[in-house]
C-alpha cells in the first residue's frame, strides 16, 4: 500500500477532566475514503479540529504528506493541501457561491493577496471555481449568495470550497447532517464521484452512506478507536455492535 497521506499517532486532547481524544492513531492512504463513526459526543469533531489545526493536541503527532504538521496552524495546513468542511455549515453568506469557491482558488494562486487585481472578474480565479461548482452540481447557482442557498446546496458548496484548494486530503465532518433524503442521495453520489481522487476522512452518522462509501471504517467511542478496518469486518465486530451499531439497530 502507498505511504499514507495522513497519519495520526497517539493524539490526545482533554477539556479539563474530560478526555475527548484518548490516544487516537489512524492513517489515511492516498485516494482512500476512511469513515470515522461513533456516537454523539465521541469526540469526532474535536478530532477533525485537531487534524485541521483549529485545536492543538495535548500530545501525539499529526503527519501530513510526510511532514510533521502538529505545530502548524490551520492556515498553514490548508496551504499544504489539507481541506475541510464543517458539521455546521460554514460559508461566507454574503458572497456568491462562485466567490466562496474562488476564495479557495485564490489561496492557491500566485498572488493570493494582491491589491491590484479585481477579484470578482478575475478569470484565473473564476474558471477553476466554476469547474469546482460544476463538479458538485452547483453551476446554475454560481451567482446566488451562499446564505440564500438551500441547506443541501450549502453542503455541496462547502465541498466545492474544499476542492478549490486542490487538496491532498479532505476532512468531511458530517456532510449529510440535516440534509433531506433526496439531497442526501445527491451528496452521496457526489462523494462517490470524488472517491479515489482525494484522501478523505469522512465523519458520518448515516450508516447506509458509510457502508456504501468507505474503504475503511474506524469507530470512535469516548475518544478511543475501538475498531478499525474493512467495513464488513467492523460491522460484525461485537464490541462495535454493542457500543454503537446496536443502538441504531434497536
Amino acid at each position, binding site marked *: 500500500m502507498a505511504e499514507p497521506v495522513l497519519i495520526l499517532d497517539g493524539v490526545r486532547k482533554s477539556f479539563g477532566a474530560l478526555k475527548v481524544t484518548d490516544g487516537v492513531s489512524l492513517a489515511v492512504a492516498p485516494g482512500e475514503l476512511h469513515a470515522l463513526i461513533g456516537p454523539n459526543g465521541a469526540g469526532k469533531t474535536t478530532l477533525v479540529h485537531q487534524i*485541521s*489545526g*483549529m485545536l492543538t493536541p495535548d500530545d501525539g503527532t499529526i503527519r501530513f504528506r510526510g511532514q510533521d504538521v502538529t505545530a502548524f*496552524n*490551520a*492556515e498553514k495546513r*490548508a*496551504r499544504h493541501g489539507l*481541506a*475541510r468542511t*464543517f458539521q455546521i455549515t*460554514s*460559508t*461566507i*453568506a*454574503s*458572497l*456568491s457561491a462562485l*466567490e466562496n469557491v*474562488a*476564495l*479557495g482558488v*485564490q*489561496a*492557491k*494562486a500566485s*498572488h*493570493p*493577496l*494582491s*491589491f*491590484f*487585481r*479585481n*477579484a*470578482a472578474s*478575475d478569470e484565473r*480565479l473564476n474558471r477553476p471555481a466554476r469547474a469546482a461548482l460544476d463538479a458538485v452540481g452547483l453551476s*446554475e*447557482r*454560481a*451567482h*446566488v*449568495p451562499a446564505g*440564500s442557498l438551500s441547506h443541501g446546496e450549502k453542503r455541496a458548496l462547502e465541498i466545492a*470550497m474544499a476542492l478549490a*484548494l486542490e487538496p491532498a486530503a479532505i476532512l468531511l465532518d458530517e456532510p449529510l447532517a440535516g440534509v433531506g433524503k433526496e439531497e442526501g442521495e445527491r451528496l452521496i453520489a457526489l462523494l462517490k464521484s470524488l472517491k479515489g481522487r482525494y484522501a478523505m476522512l469522512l465523519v458520518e452518522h448515516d450508516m447506509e452512506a458509510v457502508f456504501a462509501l468507505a474503504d475503511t471504517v474506524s469507530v470512535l467511542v469516548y475518544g478511543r478507536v475501538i475498531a478499525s478496518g474493512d467495513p464488513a469486518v467492523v460491522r460484525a465486530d461485537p464490541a462495535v455492535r454493542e457500543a454503537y451499531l446496536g443502538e441504531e439497530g434497536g
Partner: protein
Amino acid sequence: MSSATTTSEVSSVAPPRERAKLLLPAILFLLLALAPLAVTIGMPAGWLALLTRALIFAIAALSLDLILGVGGLVSFGHAAFLGIGAYVTGIMITEGRSEALVILPVILGVCALFGAITGAVCLRTRGVAFIMITLAFGQMVYFLAQALSAYGGDDGLTLYEKSTLLGFNPFANRTSFYYSVLIALAGAYLLVRGFVASRFGRVLRAARENPVRVSVTGFDVTKVRLVAYVISGMLAGLSGFFLANHTEFVSPAFMSWQRSGELIFMAVLGGVGSLHGAIIGAIAYLIAEDALSHLTEHWRVIFGPMIILFVLFTRGGIVGMLRKLGPRHG
C-alpha cells in the same frame, strides 16, 4: 420585500450589476465638484469652509470604514491617526518645513509605524477587548500630545503659515484648498474601493463574516487585518494633514476618544461598508452639527439620540435609505 425572489433569480444567471453601485458615488462627487459654484451664486463663503472641513473628515471616516465596515473591526482610537497627521504637519511647519511633499511621506511613515505596532497588539483581541485597546492606544497618543510642551502642550499649537505644494500655495486660497481636499478624497476613495474589490479585499470581507472559514482556506486573517489597519491609519493621517492646514491650529483634542467616536458615528450614519456612505455620513454629520450648534448650545443632547434613532430606523444609514428610495434593480 417581494422583489427579493426576483432579485435572486435574476442574479443566479448574471452577476450583480456593478454599474448601479457606481451611480451614487458618481453623483456625489459631481455635486462636490460643483459645490464651490454655490458660493459664486450667493451662498455665504463660510459654507465652503464648512464643506472643506466635512471633506477632510470624510477622508478619515472613509479610512475608518475600511476597517469598520469592510473588515468588521470597531476601532475606537482612529482619531489618533488623524491627530498624528495633524501634529506632524504642525510640528514640521513650525520647524520651517512646510512643503507637503516632505510632510506627507513623514505622516504616512509615522502612521504606518504606529498602525503596525498598535495593530499587532490590538488584533490579538476581538470584540469589546479590541474596542478597549484601540481606545487605550488613542488615549495614549492624546496624553502624549498634551505632554508636548515644546509644541503647545495642552493649549495646542497655532500655525502661522500653511503647507506649500511644490513651492506653490494651493492651500492658501479657499477654493483651491477645497479642490485639493476633494482630489485627495477622490483619490483615497478610488484607492480604498480598489482594495475592497481586490483579492486582498475579498479576504478582508470574508474574514469579517467568517474568520474561521477564511483561515482554514489558507489565509492568515490577522495579517490581512493588520495590513488593512495600517492602510486605514495612513489615510486617516492624510486627513490630519488637511485638518491642520484648515484650522491652522492643532491640539490634543483632535485625537480625543470623543473624536474617535464621532468618526464611528459618521461611518454608521452614512451606512457602514459602502465607502461612499462614510463620505455622505461625514458631510451630513458636520452640516447637522453646524446647524444645530447655531440653534442651541445643548445641541449634543439632541444630536446623539437623533443619530441613534436615524440609524435604528433606516438600517444601513443614509446610503441604505437612498437605496430603498432609488429604482429597483433587476
